[in-house]
């Protein structure tokens, strides 16, 4: 255990067994007994911040017992611990480490409380509300897609005429081959992009 020096600021109001590390990032990064102590100390701090936040949001959890609230605080502290350790390298010293770490616990706790509150909240729907979807129904959409596909196929297999240009997909010119996933292997007049799963031309 390190000796407490004049540089160690022991904030009033905290129940401490030992002084905080002088350099939290070093203490948490270097494997060994010092790291274990720093991890324990960090978790205590985060749990304290989580309990603080859960108490502040008590009104959001009306009817929830103290035991469940403590579970929520512990869960949030665990999540915050992981977040702090993952982001340790981003600590730039613009604030004290404790302040920086507390914000993770406060964020996690607030998130857990809101999530818990919404999981157990009923949202009543107005039976008289008439919600009308705009646009085609699924059945109409499917019908239109089938029709478009049938028209496309009919155009593709239409015989040559003297008026228009020959069908690009007449059997004499079709050289498409299709891979098992339906996409064309070779670039041919048949390989038009399609918005449906059906190939542009029926394989011959």
């Amino acid at each position, binding site marked *: 255990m390190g000796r407490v020096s004049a540089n160690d600021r022991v*904030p*009033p*109001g*905290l129940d401490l067994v030992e002084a905080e590390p002088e350099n939290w990032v070093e203490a948490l990064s270097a494997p060994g007994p010092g790291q274990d102590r720093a991890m324990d100390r960090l978790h205590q701090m985060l749990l304290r*911040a989580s309990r*603080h*936040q859960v108490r*502040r949001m008590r009104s959001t959890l009306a009817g929830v017992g103290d035991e469940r609230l403590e579970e929520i605080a512990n869960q949030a502290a665990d999540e915050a611990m992981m977040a702090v350790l993952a982001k340790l390298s981003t600590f730039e010293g*613009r*604030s*004290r480490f*404790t*302040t*920086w770490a*507390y*914000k993770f616990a*406060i*964020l996690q706790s*607030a998130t857990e409380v809101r999530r818990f509150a919404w999981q157990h909240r009923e949202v009543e729907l107005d039976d008289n*509300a*008439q919600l009308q979807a705009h646009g085609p129904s699924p059945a109409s959409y499917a019908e239109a897609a089938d029709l478009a596909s049938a028209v496309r196929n009919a155009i593709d297999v239409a015989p040559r005429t003297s008026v228009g240009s020959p069908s690009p997909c007449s059997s004499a010119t079709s050289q498409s081959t299709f891979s098992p996933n339906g996409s064309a292997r070779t670039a041919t007049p048949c390989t038009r992009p399609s918005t449906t799963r059906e190939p542009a031309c029926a394989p011959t």
Partner: protein
Amino acid sequence: MSQAHTPLSPQATQRLTLDTEPFLSCDDCFDLVDSYVEALLADPNHDQPAMRAHLTGCAACAEEARSLLALVAKQDGLDPAPALRRLENDPT
């Protein structure tokens, strides 16, 4: 058929039309909130316009900032009231 029109309250109108410049995302706010809180506790007249603008319009971030300020003030044995007033954009 649509339901009868419910007019916005003055408070709701004010919140919806807040000037959000200079803009900060919630992620940016989270990155800065620790140093902002300590600066406010050291000097309640401290100002960061971007943080002030974001916290005025974002209830979730504002609650977390108030919470952090209260926690740090308690830890350090400080009176959080002046800094909290600044946080809540109260010029008094």
